């Protein structure tokens, strides 16, 4: 019976919550380092961010890590919901008078609610960025804008090639280079497939560029469009929603980080240090995440 209980028992479920939770904390750090590159401005900044996005979507080690991340999110969420249902069942009749604020923090008592809110955030976040990056056919390729002072300030555009591209960077007519642009050409045998431009007929790769995730991100938080035809200035709405979600994440981590160590049986002389580190982590990481949409919406040009 010993080994079979390792997934089902109350304690084993907590190990899995702790392990997946701590792994997701590592993921947050990685994700944050990537996002902070959005603070770099100009062509160099955009190129750097798009190169980073290219690396994150094509590197096999990162791919493997991303599957572990998807699994961790799913497992953490499913296990968490299952635990919450079980815990609810453990007290069929509620107290008429309860005073839990005297003995525990509100974050610790509301992990399931906070977690559900984070899950909703992750779903919308993945629809808005991850799915577009991964499956979106309308994703434009990265184009550099050159203003030539010798030609009287006329703007010129350059489609930027990756080092693997069979063809070097080429001049193009417009700042946006996507399938719609390509299809305007008489020869529509050539299409963008992911980050590559291929010949539809013989699948020959003609060019490899970078998907312009940078432009997509900036446009997302600056958008003045109406969301669902109801909410005006959706860029502001998204900015506020992202900031709110990061506050929720902060509270979830405030309890979750140090709680994971307790669940794994680590409660010793290092615990005070773990608690301090966990609280610093739960404040600093969400704040750094949150200032990115604020910067894009209110400050960047």
């Amino acid at each position, binding site marked *: *019976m*010993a*080994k079979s*209980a*390792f997934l089902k*028992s*109350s*304690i*084993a*479920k*907590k*190990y899995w919550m702790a392990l997946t939770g701590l792994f997701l904390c590592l993921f947050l750090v990685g994700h944050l380092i990537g996002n902070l590159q959005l603070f770099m401005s100009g062509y160099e900044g955009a190129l750097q961010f798009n190169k980073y996005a290219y690396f994150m979507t094509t590197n096999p080690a990162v791919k493997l890590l991303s599957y572990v991340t998807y699994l961790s999110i799913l497992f953490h969420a499913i296990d968490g919901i299952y*635990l919450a249902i*079980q*815990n609810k*069942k*453990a*007290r*069929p*009749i*509620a*107290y*008429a*008078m*309860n*005073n*839990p604020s*005297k*003995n*525990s*923090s509100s974050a*610790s*008592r509301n*992990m399931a609610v906070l977690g559900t809110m984070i899950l909703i955030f992750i779903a919308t976040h993945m629809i808005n960025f991850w799915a577009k990056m991964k499956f979106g056919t309308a994703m434009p390729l990265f184009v550099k804008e050159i203003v030539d002072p010798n030609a009287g300030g006329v703007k010129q555009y350059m489609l930027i090639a990756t080092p693997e591209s069979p063809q070097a960077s080429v001049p193009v007519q417009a700042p946006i280079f996507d399938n719609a642009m390509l299809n305007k050409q008489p020869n529509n045998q050539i299409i963008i497939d992911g980050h590559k431009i291929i010949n539809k007929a013989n699948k020959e790769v003609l060019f490899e560029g970078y998907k312009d995730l940078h432009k997509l991100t900036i446009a997302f938080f600056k958008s003045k469009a109406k969301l669902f035809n109801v909410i005006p200035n959706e860029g502001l709405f998204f900015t506020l929603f992202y900031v709110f979600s990061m506050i929720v994440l902060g509270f979830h981590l405030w*309890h979750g980080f140090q*709680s994971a160590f*307790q*669940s*794994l*049986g*680590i*409660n010793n002389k290092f615990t005070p240090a773990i608690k301090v580190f966990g609280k610093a982590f739960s404040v600093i990481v969400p704040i750094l995440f949150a200032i990115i949409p604020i910067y894009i919406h209110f400050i960047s040009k």
Partner: protein
Amino acid sequence: MSAKKNININLKIWRQKNASTKGKMETYKLDNVSTDSSFLEMLDQLNEQLVNTQNEPVAFDHDCREGICGMCSLYINGRAHGPDTGTTTCQLHMRKFKDGETIFIEPWRSKAFPVVKDLIVDRSSFDRIQQAGGFVSVNTSGNTIDANATPINKSDADKAFEAAACIGCGACVATCKNGSAMLFVGAKVSQYALLPQGKIEAADRVLNMVRQMDEEGFGNCTNTGACEVECPKGISLENIARMNREYLKASVL
């Protein structure tokens, strides 16, 4: 001599005839309660009043009335064993309450602690957990080794003793938002796991006690720490961590 002071209070108490009937909160008024009386003496006074008016007295658990037997329970004004920390209900006094105050008194609420009558709950689930592994097997055929003959590290002995201070009252379960019994089981696992006599059966003990705990329908620990705050004996969360460790060792190795 301290000044004698009596208060009048309103009580909202859970009344339930037996395990199979539905209960509800009833309101009572009790006058002239001495602030020097204990909380249980106040309930005795209420019961006297109820009996004198041909009403059914309130059933509640109590025994030693000095904080060591673990019989008294009561969820008072939203807290296990009332507003004080580090005390049982029998150690709570009426001087902690104000004149005219309304006091809520409810039984421990847990699926694994069904109500027997009024404020009395059946805590035999704790006994079954204890029977599943909370012991050491000793050969008593005449060659028993004196426990004191085995040297034990002082800090381990102290930690084991602190864990053994658990009186099994169930306040941890009552106060936990998940109705989890992990502080109780953690204490019982720790008190043996820390000592050489208990180490021999440590793996089976933790696996069996946790299995029994889960079967009884207690909830899962989410480390809110409420149990540690409300425990009348100050059992530390370190005991839950130790149980988690012991369980990991027993499952993986």
